[in-house]
């Protein structure tokens, strides 16, 4: 292991985040506030409670997950795609670092950014609604696992993408719909039985359900299933990263 090199990559990736700090900080604050105005105050005031939780509070875990997933993916995919695009990847390839160190540096920075944004949204939410976190340790564990998994997933997308269009393709066409249909803003129990069954094929359901359980103690699926799901996703991402490392796929000619 080459800790100096990992630190150099991590610091350099974080520097990009801090260069646009206000944007990185303000955009989640503003978008979260908007969700609360629309869903919490305007529409939410007409919805009683969901699973015994006020609607405003109910959507908080979903909102955080939505941002953490999309931010984890976009930061990591852009982070590794940008050197490919500008050509500066030559430096990574000629440096005495292994691919695993590159992953730790780049995906680690992306996960940190996602975590930061998740924390910002949580803090912003606390301004609008009463928040209770029944299982704070599980909450932190879920948040961390999600940040890391989706940063790894984003890293894989960044390696795979050959242009900016492909970079946006999976987040836009796959991840966002899955998150919206994964119970971010509603409970699965509110759906008709057929859709409930179909929804169970959406992996995001398990993440949001588990995360919500850590807040309110209510869940659509058992918490252990949720933990297994995120663990499985993380394992798949790690296997993909390992395979890329072995074959040099789309990196080293």
């Amino acid at each position: 292991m080459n800790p100096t090199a990992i630190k150099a990559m991590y610091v350099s990736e974080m520097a990009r985040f801090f260069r646009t700090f206000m944007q990185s900080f303000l955009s989640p604050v503003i978008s979260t506030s908007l969700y609360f105005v629309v869903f919490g105050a305007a529409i939410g005031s007409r919805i009683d409670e969901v699973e015994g939780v006020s609607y405003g509070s109910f959507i908080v875990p979903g909102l955080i997950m939505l941002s953490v997933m999309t931010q984890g993916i976009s930061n990591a995919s852009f982070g590794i795609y940008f050197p490919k695009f500008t050509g500066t990847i030559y430096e990574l390839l000629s440096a005495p670092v292994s691919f695993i160190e590159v992953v730790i540096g780049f995906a680690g920075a992306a996960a940190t950014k996602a975590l930061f944004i998740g924390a910002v949204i949580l803090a912003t939410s606390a301004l609008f609604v009463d928040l209770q976190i029944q299982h704070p340790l599980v909450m932190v564990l879920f948040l961390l696992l999600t940040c890391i998994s989706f940063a790894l997933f984003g890293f894989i997308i960044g390696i795979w993408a050959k242009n900016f269009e492909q970079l946006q393709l999976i987040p836009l066409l796959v991840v966002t719909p899955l998150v919206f249909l994964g119970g971010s803003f509603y409970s699965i129990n509110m759906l008709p039985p057929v859709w409930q069954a179909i929804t169970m094929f959406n992996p995001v359901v398990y993440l949001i359900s588990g995360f919500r359980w850590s807040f309110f103690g209510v869940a659509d699926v058992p918490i252990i299933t949720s933990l297994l799901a995120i663990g499985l996703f993380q394992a798949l991402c790690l296997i993909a990263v390992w395979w890329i490392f072995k074959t040099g796929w789309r990196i080293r000619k």
Partner: protein
Amino acid sequence: MTDILILEGVEKTYDSGFTALHGVDLTLREGEILALLGPNGAGKTTLISCICGTVMPTRGKITVGGFDALTDYRRARSLIGLVPQEIHLEPFSRVMDTVRYSRGLFGKGRNDAYIEKILRDLSLWDKRDSRVMELSGGMKRRVLIAKALSHEPRILFLDEPTAGVDVDLRKEMWEVVANLKAAGVSIVLTTHYIEEAEAMADRIGVINRGRLALIEEKAALMSRLGRKTLKIELETPVAVIPDALTSYGLQIADGGNALVYEYEAGASRTGITRLLSDLRDAGLCLSDLSTRQSTLEEIFVGLVHQQEENA
């Protein structure tokens, strides 16, 4: 002198099936400047990329400072600095930061005094806080060199450092390279500017179609393959070459005002003394003499054509 870099039978076939290198053997001696010459697409960049790790060689063995470039890549690559052909820099980063980053990436601890020295040597110190995108093309190239030198490599690869660069800047680059050599860095540079190799290199390798056509001391190459011409200007023009001089293979030039004699630069007997006395005996009066040595360019073109005829 010890060999700091050894290539044995290095081959590269790309996924497309194109073989860019056919079993190249090459050594770099410590402290020398080796120029690799070759036309576009000859395999120069592929060769450098295989050594530096950006391209995986299909076959062959590369040893850098005693370390295998594949199995012991950490130690091997630590010894190498690479200046790529294209200007690949992150546009928004600042000069000092990007050079520091390179040093860290190669696992070296922060040393701002050393980086200051590099930036000063490359006349970039005043620009240390500028963003890369604000710099001129020449400065960007120097930033690439600074990045490559940031981890104190013992071998520097310069892939066409002066391609598309104006004359002043080219001279400046040559100076930079000469200073690096003086500081003990071994250098491999690729170029298709022959004058560049002629001005800087200790040894010259010629690559064509993925094969190393030759590698030799510059001076030896020039004298072995170089032809010299002696131009004899006459006071009164001649229409035909006098019979007594036919054995010299002279050619009439400048409408009879001059004769041109061609000879091997490295030959022990050039025949000049006898030619001059025969000229006097033939009654020709000379007004001036000049000699010219064929340039590396002519040697190079000759070699490449010869190889193509053999192929």
